[in-house]
């Protein structure tokens, strides 16, 4: 096992990796930007190195700064977390060249998984269902029109090297195809220096379902069940659960078997996630591979009992998957994760600032992953994730009850958070019944019912702004009179 590793990340995931390292007796080196000098990952790592100013491009995304930090601290490996450099194949390559183990898949695997159309072909070859569409890149308008006619409108144009919506176009009828194809190609060229575009059938109301993968460095791959991630706001996941209310044991087994084959054929190592869309007939269609640990990995940990970050470290150190997993996979109970973001729950505008009062929920069936503390700062430079609140129960009902309770007892003062939004979701009849898809959140209306399907009431104390409630801290100050 490694003696010392560097964690090339910040926030809750950096703390999460520190936890796994402490559990394994591995020393940790935190890196931080000047904005994170007093962050919790800096406090709890064994060593800490300032690598640059607040801006990510000059700190957490700066390959030279991170590698230099790894070199001067003499670490054996780097854990990239998620985001930042985690899916940067060049960074993984520089790590290898520098003699530092990159905790993740091989650089060429990361690179190939980043080429969406390439991943699509691999999956199709392994018998994993993919969305109907072009087999490769679209070469001509005629070819595009012919494929579209065959699979039927609406269709989606996507950049082959893409992500984040750039180079994407929804085409609803043939007359729009020429213009939209040209737009998608030029946008892709501008954004990714590669104008290649491919076509997929558009599912209007899909569910988002993903499978957790672990592969060791000896050719073994295992699939650890699925996660349901349909509660999204503009392609950003907000609430995830495992298992999915809409995946049967038969479907899980069938997809897992094919994924095992596909991921083995790729030579996939370490943790990864394969994302699917599900149509209204419960057919799953592959969309992409995320070659890293996911934000929502704790729901899988709760139902499988497997510590995924510990597994990442052990696999990277050369252990065999059968030792890491100890026994056949069993799924036990149900887990839900709510992402508590520093955002106005109504407008979704980021709400950075100082946390003036904090009560973390605890008790039975509750897990909190966070780097927040009273008087801590949520800086405006990075993502808005303040905490992940995860609950587990013997079934979905118990997990939901515990989540409602935990949200109720989660107090964050000084900033807006998504807690009231999650409370609305958890109380929604369709959500409780498991009837939802990726359009669910867009139908929730946070302006007191002017439009939208679901009627929503924001609690007054949540809607009014940062002084959300009688200040916890002030209440306390009066306590010693």
């Amino acid at each position, binding site marked *: 096992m490694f003696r010392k590793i560097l964690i090339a990340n910040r926030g809750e995931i950096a703390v999460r990796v520190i936890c796994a390292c402490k559990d394994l007796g591995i020393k940790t080196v935190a890196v931080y930007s*000047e904005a994170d*000098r*007093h962050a919790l990952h*800096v*406090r*709890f*790592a*064994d*060593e*800490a*190195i*300032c*690598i*640059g*100013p607040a801006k990510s491009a000059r*700190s957490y995304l700066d390959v*030279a*700064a991170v*590698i*230099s*930090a790894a*070199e*001067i*601290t003499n670490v054996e490996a780097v854990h990239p977390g998620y985001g930042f450099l985690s899916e940067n194949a060049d960074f993984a390559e*520089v790590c290898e060249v*520098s003699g530092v183990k990159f905790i993740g898949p091989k650089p060429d695997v990361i690179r190939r998984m980043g080429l969406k159309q390439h991943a699509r072909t691999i999956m199709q070859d392994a018998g994993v269902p993919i969305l109907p569409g072009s087999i490769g890149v679209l070469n001509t308008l005629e070819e595009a029109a012919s494929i579209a006619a065959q699979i039927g409108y609406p269709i989606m144009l996507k950049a082959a090297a893409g992500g984040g919506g750039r180079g994407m176009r929804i085409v609803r009828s043939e007359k729009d195809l020429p213009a939209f194809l040209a737009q998608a190609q030029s946008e892709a060229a501008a954004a990714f220096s590669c104008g290649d575009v491919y076509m997929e059938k558009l599912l209007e109301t899909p569910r988002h379902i993903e499978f957790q993968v672990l592969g060791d460095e000896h050719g073994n791959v295992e699939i650890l069940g699925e996660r349901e991630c349909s509660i999204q706001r503009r392609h950003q996941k907000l609430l995830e659960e495992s298992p999915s209310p809409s995946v049967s044991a038969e479907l899980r087994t069938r997809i897992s078997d094919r994924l095992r084959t596909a991921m083995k054929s790729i030579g996939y190592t370490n943790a990864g996630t394969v994302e699917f869309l599900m149509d209204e007939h419960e057919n799953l269609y592959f969309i992409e591979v995320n070659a890293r640990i996911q934000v929502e990995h704790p729901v899988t940990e709760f139902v499988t009992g497997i510590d995924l970050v510990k597994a990442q470290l052990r696999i990277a150190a050369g252990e065999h998957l059968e030792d890491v997993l100890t026994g056949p996979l069993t799924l036990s109970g149900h887990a839900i994760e709510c992402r508590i973001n520093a955002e106005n729950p109504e407008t979704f505008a980021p709400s950075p600032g100082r946390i003036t009062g904090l009560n973390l929920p605890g008790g039975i069936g509750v897990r909190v992953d966070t780097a927040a503390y009273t008087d801590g700062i949520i800086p405006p430079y990075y993502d808005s994730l303040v905490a992940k609140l995860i609950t587990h129960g013997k079934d979905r009902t118990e997990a939901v009850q515990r989540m409602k309770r935990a949200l109720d007892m989660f107090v964050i003062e000084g900033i807006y958070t998504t807690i009231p939004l999650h409370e609305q979701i958890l109380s929604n009849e369709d959500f409780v019944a498991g009837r939802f898809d990726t359009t669910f959140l867009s139908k929730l209306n946070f302006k007191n019912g002017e439009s939208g399907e679901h009627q929503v009431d924001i609690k007054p104390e949540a809607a009014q702004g940062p002084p959300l409630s009688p200040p916890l801290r002030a209440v306390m100050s009066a306590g010693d009179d």
Partner: protein
Amino acid sequence: MTIDEIKELIHLVRDTGVTELEVQRGENRVRIRSAPDHKEIMVPTVVPVPLTASGGITSAAVPAPAREAAPAPSAPLPREDERDVIVKSPIVGTYYDAPAPGAAPFVKTNDRVEPKQVLCIIESMKLMNEIEAELAGTLIAKHVENGRPVEYGESLFTIRPL
């Protein structure tokens, strides 16, 4: 602890402008807090060291501002009144004070330095990055020993401008 001593402490607190003072002598303890005249905290005088800092490379985690204050502990002047200029490391890497092992250092304390003069080298990913002076002055302090790793923003030299 006598009243006179406490009185002295309170006056100390007021005169020094600190917001809180706590003194404990065996079983005796005094804590004094004072509302600041203006609400911004004077961070640099009380920058705390994170728990993890405990020697070796870890000491690199000491916030840079604490080091800035070090050269002139007897003169707690506001930042903008201070003439001394701190040269900080613009990158993470290993500090070398000479162009080659065994060679004479680029600069010594009390040396006169000129703009563009090389003060040291910081090695990062096998690249030797020369750090130059930005102004003319006297080098009054070198803060890092040869061969030691430095983090971003770490103080390297203090230069007193001419």
